[in-house]
Structure formats: structure tokens, C-alpha cells
């Protein structure tokens, strides 16, 4: 799988390259600013791009803007955005930049190597990955009288993992239960939140849950 990495700090850029190569990814370009990123996306045609939010020249959010611009130019281009901090605002902008094939994670998550690599694969395959911190904030902002409050603790846990973009198998592994138990939970959640049960495809499910939580 061909990856483009955009990260301005050499230490992290090399680390990411080494990590992804160790898991069989082919890093076709590792660039350090948004302009080079746009060039690399055009010339290398990668399967997925891993992009840092803050890059030169202004060190604000050009990584994010570059990712959204690239997805406008080439719809469905898989981009995983990494940042030292997460914002609901940016999550919304990224999710709004096309249907799926997008991820938004804290840089900290890289330390959990297997989950991180899984996230890169999910995004490359057209899925959606959201950082647990974004999801936690989304669930926390559900008003006290919303149907979310009628979920059991376990169901809420599953809801969060669904919103992060995990598959039933991944959720089952994370919670140490069987996949069958998880699918029971998910159908309960869909019923209680009055979501369309047809939205079972991996990405449609994430989008439905997030759209619900964003209100």
C-alpha cells in the first residue's frame, strides 16, 4: 500500500516512515509542508496520505486545509490527519469534505502501533476513523434528555467505538466479548437512537452515528 507522509518535524517524519514501512506500507513520499504535499499527492497518486495539521509556513492549520483541498480536487482521496490536539470544528470540516476515506487522530495514538496501523488501513479502504477524544466529547455533549442517556453503559461504550470507526470484530476484541454480543448491542443502539437499520455498511454506520451525535 502506497503512503504519502506530510510532517514538518524530521524526528516524527522519520519515525512514521519507519513505523509504516515495518508494517508493509510503501512510503512513496515524506514531505515537510503543504505545498510539497499537494505536489506529492498529484504526482505519486498514493493509496492514503498521513498529514500533520500544523506545518510551515504559518504553523497553523495548513495540513488540514491542504487535506480538504486535495479531497476537493480528487474526491474520495483517503487522508488521515494527525494533530497534537483535536477540535470538533476540524472534525466537522474533515467529515464534511467527502464521504468516508478520512481519519482524524491525535498524534498520541501512533504509540498504539497496531491500532494506528489499523486506522491507516481503514481510511485507505474508504472508512472513517475518529479520535476517541473527539467521540468522547461528542457523546458528552448529548443533552441529558436525549436518547443517548437511555443507553446502558455498555451500549454507550459500543456507540463510542462505532463512532471511532471500529468494525464489530475490532469492538469485540477491544471489549473482550464475542462479535455476536456486539451485533446485539449495535442493533439495540440503532433501535434506541431511532437510526436507519439499513446503515450497516462499515462507513455508513460511522457516518450515521456521527451525524446523530453532532445533532
Amino acid at each position, binding site marked *: 500500500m502506497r503512503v504519502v507522509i506530510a510532517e514538518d518535524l524530521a524526528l516524527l517524519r522519520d519515525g512514521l516512515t519507519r513505523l509504516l514501512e515495518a508494517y508493509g506500507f510503501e512510503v512513496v513520499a515524506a514531505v515537510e509542508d503543504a505545498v510539497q504535499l499537494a505536489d506529492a499527492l498529484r504526482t505519486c497518486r498514493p493509496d492514503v496520505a498521513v498529514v500533520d495539521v*500544523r506545518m510551515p509556513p504559518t504553523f497553523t492549520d495548513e495540513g488540514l486545509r491542504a487535506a480538504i483541498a486535495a479531497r476537493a480536487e480528487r474526491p474520495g482521496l483517503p487522508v488521515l490527519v494527525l494533530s497534537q490536539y483535536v477540535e470538533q*470544528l476540524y472534525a466537522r470540516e474533515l467529515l464534511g469534505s467527502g464521504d468516508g476515506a478520512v481519519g482524524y487522530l491525535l498524534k498520541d495514538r501512533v504509540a498504539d502501533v497496531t491500532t494506528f496501523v489499523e486506522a491507516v488501513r481503514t481510511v485507505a479502504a474508504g472508512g472513517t476513523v475518529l479520535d476517541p477524544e473527539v467521540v468522547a466529547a461528542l457523546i458528552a455533549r448529548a443533552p441529558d434528555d436525549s436518547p443517548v442517556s437511555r443507553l446502558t453503559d455498555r451500549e454507550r461504550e459500543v456507540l463510542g467505538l462505532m463512532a471511532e470507526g471500529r468494525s464489530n470484530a475490532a469492538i469485540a476484541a477491544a471489549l473482550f466479548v464475542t462479535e455476536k454480543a456486539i451485533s446485539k448491542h449495535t442493533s439495540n443502539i440503532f433501535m434506541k437512537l431511532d437510526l436507519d437499520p439499513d446503515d450497516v455498511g462499515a462507513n455508513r454506520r460511522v457516518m450515521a452515528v456521527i451525524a446523530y451525535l453532532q445533532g
Partner: protein
Amino acid sequence: MSTVQVAPPLGGESFVAGVRRRVALTGMSVVYVLLAPLAVVMLCVLTTSLGVAVVGAGLLLLLLFVPLNEQLARLHRHLSGGLLGARIEAPYARAGRGSPWRVLRSWADDPARWRDFAWTWMAVTIGWALAWIALGLGLLVVWYAIFPLVHAVTPAGTFDMDYGIYRVDSVATSFLEWGFLAVAFGLWWYLEPVLMRWRAELDRAMLAPPRSVLERRVAEVSQSRSESIDHSAAELRRIERDLHDGAQARLVALGMNLGLAEELLATDPDAAARLLSEARTVTTSALGDLRSVVRGIHPPVLADRGLAGAVQALALDMSLPVSVTIVLPGRPPAPVESAVYFATSELLANIGKHAAATRASIDVGHDGRALWLVVEDDGVGGASLATGSGLSGVARRLAAFDGTMDLVSPVGGPTTIRLEVPCALSSPKTSPSSATD
């Protein structure tokens, strides 16, 4: 217009420069003479409308003419301040907001408005007279200077003079009038700056903030300064403590874990693996600590998107729907952005904690003088600025920027809070920062 000053330059000036300065001062006297009729209008209208203020029409006239008089006074502050080589500050208290009645009440309570009114009396009496005399002196010089010419071009006899001891009736004798020119020039030379200075000093005495206002202002400024110093010292202590107990401690633990894992790698690989996995968890929590410290210092979204984006981000974090309307043609200075951001954050947190509101709104704009931000919610109201409350802290911190906070929160709601911070906006471009991510 007001580049001329009544005082000669410090290093002295040449005769030519002295003449030029006095000519310019005479020009200014014309301006004062021409502006006086406006003051007459103000005087008449304001006096009449005060007299009939009991009926609505008087109040309407006041609403219209008090600001007009303020503009006239402002122009005179500018002109006279220029003549004196000093800036004359506007002394007005902040006008009330909302109903015209509240505005009128706040004007009535503001001594500066009454002093403006008194000033119109001065401007149409002694002020006008001084300007006329200053102008007259200049005209006198001109008249005597051109007298021989006038005498020559007008029909014989029109400007003949009979002073008893001699007669002016021919071209040759008409030059005798230049004797008066010397006197007129002398008067003009010595009195023109004096008269114009009196005029300007009178304006300053009546239009500048009185001493008591300035003293109060100094007291306010020193209090808000010491409060903001206290506040930032406390903030620095808090940051130091957060780093010491949080990220630093975790990094120490991380070092220990890694060292131990290194030792155990050969003898007990399983234990080493456990320690490494623990080390990974510790890095995550250390990063979390650092993130919260950074948010407390300068939220990254504020650096990225400015006040507009940061306020939107705050609204998105609320559990109730918050509509945001922001019309800002540029960016306020960074310290103001930061202060207003933290104030907004505090206000929203208050709504979340106490208001029991179902919706809220934030409006942000700039009226040319100040940045304003209005937060409204439909909650239970009853918020107060009593000392010790979060709101009083917000007001205190805004005071460091000459900012103000107005609170309207009747019991039963709704609550409206308006923040205002005087500042200019920079042109709308992203400013580079040196931070890295």
C-alpha cells in the same frame, strides 16, 4: 489644518517663520469665527429642548443634538489641541445602552455632557469675541498695508483722511498711513498668538477631562494593572505546578520504566514487555497533560483560526445548541483575542453550569472603536457580578484592556452579557507564528 501652534518653536524662529506662523494663526481665527454660528445653533436648540424636555419633542431634539454638539466639541478639541500642541482627550462617560430613555439618563448623569453645553455658551460669547479680535488684527494689518493702493485705485477723495495736523489726499501722502501699519503690525505680532492661545486654553479648560476624572482614571488603571499582574503571576504558578505534577512527573516515571525494561530485556523479556507497554501509556497521559496546559496558555485553535474560529469551536463543545454570528473584517490584536476568548469560554461554562438554558447565541462584531461580543441564553437568569463569582473575574480581566462587561440577567431570564474591548482590527491576513506542532 492644525499644524500651526501658538507657541514659537523651542529653538526660536526667524522673522519670516514668525510672520508665517502668525498668518496661519490668523487663518485659524477665521475657522473659529466661522464655526461659532454652529455653536449658536447648538446653544439655541439645546437650551430650548432642555426647557421643553418635559414634552417628548424636547427629548427627541436632545437625542439628536447632544451627539451633534459632541461632534462640534470634538472638532474644537482637535483644533485647540493642535494649537496648544497637546492632545485633548474626550471626557465622556460610557453612554447607556438600550432604550433612548437610558441613553438620555446616562447623558444627564455625565458631567462632561453638561460641560459641553456650558462650552457652547463660551464659544458664542468670549470665545467668538477672541476669534473676531484675532481676525480683526490681521485684517487691520492688511488694510494699512494696501491702503496706498486702495487710495490710488478708488475715485479721488473716497479714502482721503484729515487728521488735523496733516491730510492724506494724494498718492504720496497716502503712504503716511504706513505709520499706522507699523502700529497694527506690532499689535498683530504680539497679540495674535496671545489671543489664539486664550481661545485654545478656554476650549481646553472646558472640553478636556477635569482633573478628578483623570485621577479616577489613574486609580482605575493602576488597580487593573496590579490585578492583571497578580492574575498572570497566579497563572504562571499554576502552569508551573501543572507541568511539575503532570508531564514532568510522568516523564520521570517513563525514564524509570524504560531503564528497568532495558535491564530486564535479557533476563525477563515478558516483564520488559509489560514495562514497555506501561511506558507507552505514560507517554499518552504526559501528552494529555501537556495538551491541557497548552490550552490554558494559548488554545491552538485560537492560533490557527483567530477569534472567529476559536469562538465557533467553543460553541461546538457546548451540549446545547449555540448559534454563532461573527462579522469581523480583520483580526483584533492577539492579547485582546486571547482575553475575549477566555472570557467567552468562562461565560459559556457559566451557562452550562448554572443557566439551565435550552439554547444560546454568540454575536461578535467591531463598531470601529471597540470589539464587542454578546452572549445570550434563555436560561433562568439571576446571574450577578457579585465579587467572587466567575463573572466578576471576567470583568476584572477585561478591565486590563479597558474592556467592559454589561450584564442583564433578570430572575427568570433571559441573560444577556455584552463584552466590549476598545481596539483596532488588523488587515485580514494570517499572521505567521513560530510555534510548531
